[in-house]
């Protein structure tokens, strides 16, 4: 069953840049889908349009299960935290905006922080946290609404490799527990293969889809998978598609 369907979506910015041209994508429920492509290929734009930020220039986006009860979580490239608010106040924000009473929200905040391993930092301010911890707060905030679709825009791009591997594993663990749908934007072939069961490769100028690959490897995935020949094979396949995308643009 598809959760969101893009049909011939086009996006032209006011300065005339064609960000997206004729993108059709059917995202199935429970999928971990990665969008990979060179910079400027419009992968972030796809994410933002799905999130309802910005208008489509052409085409349409459908929510087969009904747009009314779509619950989205969004994780930006930067942690995007309110520096004047504590970790728990940042995490509770989506509920507060929905008018959920404080007493009902408190246990959910606690649970979300426990899920990302930050329960002892509830009262800390963002500036007291490391980059990886800030990203975890951002993920906890996205998870607190119990989203059916989690949109992630290069969330770990600014982190060091050790932190990134750790967060990759944590994210996979959470995804297997909750089975929401994830659309994950990244420019890293290795990260996308490790995480996803489907990868869409995009090319730039104009932004368009050029390959749709299934990553048929069983979950749970761990460090053994990262060094397996199966993993390497998929990485080669995606790299080839990406090179094709670079040549095409």
């Amino acid at each position: 069953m598809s959760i969101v369907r893009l049909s011939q979506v086009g996006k032209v910015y006011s300065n005339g840049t064609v960000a997206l041209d004729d993108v059709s994508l059917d995202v199935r429920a429970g999928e971990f889908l990665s969008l990979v492509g060179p910079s400027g290929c419009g992968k972030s734009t796809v994410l933002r349009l799905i999130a309802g930020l910005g208008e489509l220039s052409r085409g349409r986006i459908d929510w087969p299960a009904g747009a009314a009860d779509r619950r989205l979580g969004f994780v930006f490239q930067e942690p995007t935290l309110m520096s004047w608010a504590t970790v728990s106040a940042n995490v509770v924000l989506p509920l507060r905006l929905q008018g959920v009473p404080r007493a009902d929200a408190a246990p959910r905040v606690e649970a979300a922080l426990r899920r990302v391993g930050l329960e002892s930092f509830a009262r800390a301010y963002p500036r007291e946290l490391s980059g990886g911890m800030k990203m975890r707060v951002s993920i906890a905030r996205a998870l607190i609404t119990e989203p059916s679709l989690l949109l992630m825009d290069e969330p770990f791009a600014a982190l060091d490799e050790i932190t990134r591997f750790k967060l990759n594993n944590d994210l996979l663990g959470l995804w297997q527990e909750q089975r929401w749908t994830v659309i994950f934007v990244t420019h890293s072939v290795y990260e996308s293969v490790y995480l996803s069961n489907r990868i869409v490769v995009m090319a730039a100028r104009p932004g368009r889809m050029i390959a749709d690959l299934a990553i048929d490897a069983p979950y749970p995935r761990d460090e053994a998978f990262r060094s397996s020949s199966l993993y390497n094979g998929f990485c080669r396949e995606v790299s080839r598609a990406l090179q094709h995308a670079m040549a095409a643009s």
Partner: protein
Amino acid sequence: MSLPTPPLLSSGAELPLAAAPRTDPLQFVMPIAIGLVFLGAWEAAVRLADVPPYILPGPWRILQTLISDRESLFDALLVTLEVTVSAFVLAALGGGALAILFTRSRWIELSLFPYAVILQVTPIVAIAPLIIIWVKDTYLALLICAWIVAFFPVLSNTTLGLSSTDHNLLNLFELYGASRRQTLWYLRVPSALPYYLAGLRIAGGLALIGAVVAEFVAGTGGTNTGLAYLILEAGYRLQIPRMFAALLLISGTGILIFLVLSLLSHVILRKWHESAVRREN
């Protein structure tokens, strides 16, 4: 080379919270020492050269005057202080409210901002006589003058602060369906707070300057008893030590206003804003 340690801490570990800023005693000792040396030299110069007090009184004479004339001086101080504080409070509320109104409507901002600039760039000394002629009540006239000077920094700083909200956070608020009111109070206002507080610090000093300037202009009418009027009067009577005493009170008030507002800013921002947090390398 040391191995990189993963910055992710497991639960249970606590990061050191920002330590209370340790103050270096030299920070206070040095300015006070220099002040004392200066005062000593001043007193010695006045005594040795036998300068008459109606030309330049020594610090000791000024202190004596401050004590002997304390009643009239402090009455005048209260008058000036009342105008300053009322003008400051009105500027703080009015500047903040108008800045918020500007973010609600681009049209209001475009129509009103030029006039705020005109008020700001016209020297208050030049408008004060007009205001004093038009407004019968002297207290009200002084208040208006001081407010005009104090109001603009609050308005312009807060306007800048309200419009420099992080775009990603604005997107986030839109994504979660925040109303305009929620976006204003949960996002724009807190992120403009450091700008607002910086505006207040400027406005505090300017409110005092505005009040004193207006008193100078109005004071010749003889209806007012603020510190500036006292200085004018003492000048006519060649009571120079009294002039210095009043001047001392004005400067002291200015310093006190600055300290109080800096403290307020520090207390509000110390937990989260870079300006109030000690840098540790």
